[in-house]
């Protein structure tokens, strides 16, 4: 299935095997049933970073199962105001 991926605030795809290596925006094919946790492993995002993930404008937890055409936004911890 295909995902629309947006990485923010300095996050980048860290997997040299992927076409989006080093990038923060991409459309990516992943296996059906991929969870947010598995996606971050696929993208090789530093496991030490606690991620905030938005799927189609909703905050979702790491075990959330993604669907075809989902838009996934990932953020490291951020704040402001």
């Amino acid at each position, binding site marked *: 299935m295909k995902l629309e991926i*947006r990485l*923010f*605030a*300095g996050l980048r795809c860290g997997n040299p095997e992927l076409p989006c290596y080093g990038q923060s925006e991409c459309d990516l094919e992943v296996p059906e049933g991929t969870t947010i946790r598995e996606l971050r492993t696929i993208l090789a995002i530093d496991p030490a*970073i*606690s991620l*905030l993930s*938005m799927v189609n*404008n*909703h*905050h979702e937890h790491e075990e959330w199962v993604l669907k075809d055409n989902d838009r996934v*936004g990932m*953020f*490291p*911890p*951020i*704040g*402001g*105001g």
Partner: protein
Amino acid sequence: MDKIARIDMGAAGGPKVTMEEVGEYVGLGGRALTSLLIAKEVHPLCHALGAENKLVFAPGMLSGTAGAMTGRLSVGCKSPLTGTIKESNAGGQAAQVLARLGYAAIILEGKPASDDLYKIHVNKDGIQISVDNSLKLLDNYPLVDKLRKEYGDKVAYITIGTAGERKLLAASIACTDPELRPTRHCGRGGVGAVMGAKGVKAIILDDAGMKMRPPKEPEKYRDANRKFVEGLRKHPVTGEGLPAYGTNVLTNVLNEAGGYPTYNFKTGQFATSAKLSGEAQAELEIKRGGTATHGCHRGCVIQCSGIYNDKDGHYLTKQPEYETVWSHGGHCGIDDLDTVARLDFMDDNIGVDTIEMGVTIGVAMDAGIIEFGDKEGAIRLMEEVGKGTPLGRVLGCGAAVTGKVYGVERVPVVKDQALPAYDPRAIQGIGVTYATTTMGADHTAGYAIATNILKVGGDVDPLKTEGQVELSRNLQIATAAIDSTGMCLFIAFAIMDQPETFQALLDMLGAFYGITMTGDDVVALGKKVLSAERDFNARAGFTKQHDRLPRFFYTEPIAPHNQTFMMKDEELDEVFNW
């Protein structure tokens, strides 16, 4: 901070200074001091621009010490914008200098009989007040340049621009940063108009010959401060996100969450918001030789600010905050950072609140004065404000006035103060704060975004009503207390997540004053401040019916969540039932 100076601007024969002991306000600072004093001394039904109103400048409880992050200055009065009590705070150098000079507060009272413009010089020898009509109709940047020729660079300046002189309801009070730029503003509520009404154009604070305020228990204080700083550096928000990208890092997350009010609150996402993002802004700042990491006062270890240069590498403005980039950006359908930066400079220079002005321009766009997305048009409207034309005066009096003058229905205000950069239909918790805070719509009063969106200090679903009242209540209480300490509110991200950093803050307060400070004491302080503010507002005629959002938030669902504001009136009425 053992004295209070009262300056009667209306005294016969010219302004008169009276010094007094801090008395009942001992140990208080910042918002606690301004709000308790205004609630006690100002007639709640007075005209905010009249002689009966008072304008209080108070450094925080820990300002002027060696403690990190302690440089917030609170300004309190009855607000001419909202008619409620008002505390508006800013960074910059002023609080540290005023505290080292020994003042718990400087209070401007009365009203001068003439049109003369005054400047107030405060140094170790006391307070001198003089007429200086050569400062008339100077905006903040040229004003500070002129004052620097006379008073030099080792001082802090508190000033108003032309908006304050003209008593416009969006007028701010500017405090200079370490480089003496008038960029840190007590923005909200028209406090600059009150300073203008008192006839005071500038306050010059010179702490030469003064020392840091000494703690009662110096070693304990040093130790607690060290732990506190460690905690701020360790937390990813205060240690990494804010220093790298500033507050504007929020653009992408709010847009992604569908809570980014766009085209005057018509939709919750802006298609080209990425062009306005903190990431894009930081990259541009660095590329142009500015910086994305800068402290608004010495002693700030988070350094969320920055310097924004123009394309030729010349200073244009300080790093515009998220709220500013939103109000002048997405809210108006503008996706150009250079336009936003120019407007930010104009706001600071003229001396107006960036949130109020941006929201007002969006309302003016809804009225058809200019089109959404019209960059040059937005700048032209700001020029009108700077010139004080009739249209400029209407706009400079904020969104509520502009909406009334032009017959606009969708006017995003509570108690006539413009809503900030978070849509309450997509983020119910912040709507509770907007509706109920004593200040008129204000995100900082109880920043539910932290828990609704950023998942700091817990996780409350932004699209549901459950848990929002309690969240907003707790945040409003904590904020009232933090606003009293002189600490920048951004410490909250670390103290909400890290109990040891909160303990370090308590230990700093305890060691400084030689007392034991517990979490319960902080809660009690916050409640005391809020109660005094609520009492003032009640006597000023505010009822629970004023603690509501404009009707369109209840009737117009917003994309992408297609939700309205769902909190029931009875739930909102529970916020202050503790």
